[in-house]
């Protein structure tokens, strides 16, 4: 069996919690003993513009933390779909937030998971947790980490100050898993 390897680019607008779910994923991967890198796009373009981060997961030493042709994409807005869809590896996974992405994916050689993330988020209480819905769907599809480790990461990142947000995020995340498993 070849050693485990996965990479994913998460992209959307600044303020959608793009970097946040990337960090949760990286944290959970670390908990499971694998190597991981998380790298953001940084600088002024992140303020109100597009934000993206790349997470690389491997059993081996990680070489490049930046990825030309990712195996997976989590896409939260139209500009990100246009930017990253052509770069997705053949046979790769495209998780797309259909609540906000009005463009249709063009690729036919990849697996597409459509998630109405904002609608679900509003249903569970707050449209700010659409990112957690997306993360849930991605993890259900890839089985890259176990659910518990994401929740542990969430608890840690929210800390005492934002403890009250845990339940909402958890529910959104679990809804995402359900969609991913469908």
């Amino acid at each position: 069996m070849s050693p485990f390897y996965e990479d994913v680019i998460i992209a959307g607008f600044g303020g959608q919690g793009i970097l946040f779910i990337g960090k949760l994923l990286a944290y959970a991967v670390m908990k499971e003993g694998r190597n991981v890198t998380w790298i953001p796009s940084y600088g002024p373009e992140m303020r109100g513009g597009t934000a993206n981060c790349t997470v690389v997961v491997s059993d081996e030493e990680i070489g490049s933390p930046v990825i030309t042709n990712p195996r997976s994409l989590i896409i939260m807005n139209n500009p990100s779909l246009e930017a990253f869809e052509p770069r997705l590896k053949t046979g790769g996974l495209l998780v797309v937030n259909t609540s906000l992405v009005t463009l249709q994916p063009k690729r036919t050689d990849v697996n597409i998971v459509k998630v109405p993330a904002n609608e679900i988020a509003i249903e569970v209480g707050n449209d700010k947790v659409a990112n957690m819905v997306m993360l849930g769907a991605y993890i259900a599809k890839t089985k890259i980490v176990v659910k518990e480790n994401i929740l542990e990461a969430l608890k840690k990142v929210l800390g005492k100050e934002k403890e009250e947000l845990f339940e909402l995020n958890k529910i959104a995340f679990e809804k995402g898993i359900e969609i991913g498993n469908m």
Partner: protein
Amino acid sequence: MGEKVLISGNEAIAEAAVQAGCRFFFGYPITPQNKIPEYMSKRLPQVGGCFVQAESEIAAIYMVFGAAGAGARVMTSSSSPGISLKMEGISYIAGAELPCVIVNVMRGGPGLGGILPSQSDYFQATKGGGHGDYRLLVLAPSTVQEAVDLIMDAFDLADKYRNPVMVLADGYIGQMMEPVEFKKSPPPELPPKNWAITGAKGRPRNLIKTLYLNPVELEKHNLKLQQKYLEMAKNEVRVENYMTEDAEIIIAAYGTTARITKTAIKILREKGINAGLVRPITLFPFPYSTFKEIAEKVDNILVVEMNMGQMLEDVKIGVCGRAEIHFYGRTGGMVPSYDEIAVQAEKIVKEEAI
């Protein structure tokens, strides 16, 4: 094995410094290294240390001069344009033989340049930068873990040689998060800082200076400095040889570029091209002898940098005409991808075959 924490390069650099006994930090904000001073402003008071946001990079480096001269473990960090401003003070620190650690999280230049990763300060770091005949000991981490390890070593090396040590990172290493373990190794035996400014009680007064109006004395001082740099070259060279044993082509790269190259090597090997990497970890002293040896075994060496060919010159010195040297560089914040590197290497190998 200790517990791993997920942490960004900038924060890891700051925490590693604290764990290495750094209690003083003087800096000035500049992207993309702001997390370092921010972290220090919070962390240092917790351990009885002190953070000062200086009025300029120039003032910051002289605060480092003052604190280093007072015998403390002290660090400053900045990014390319800010490091240029610090260069005056770095020359004085080197001349006065004060130990300190300077972090450069490089961004694109010249001038204000950009804020994205770059390696275009290689010359500045390794060949002097400020005025006078001096050298910094320059360490170039390739991962966040290595940044932590090298920062910890940097303080010991600075004290050992009474010399400023520069940790040369780039924007990617600063921004990237990786699981990191803070491994505290037992402190090596270091010379006492009996030269430090502590108040002349029960001893003759101490004087920290760089002015030698008598040329005989100044030459003597310079020869002493050179002797120290030779010692560093003898004792401190660090280099990683990655898959070089069976290599038909060698890629030379450091820092972020080197880890991207590792992915390129994987791609090349899948295509049946045996590529290897020589990764200098110390940029000064430079691993010239590694390149001399490797040049006896391969015909082609490809140097890859995020600049227009700076380490290239040191590789040429090491190789000294024993092999063909090729160069591939991206600059201005553009980062070479592993595909690009693989294409370049493949082209060299195939042209060779014709």
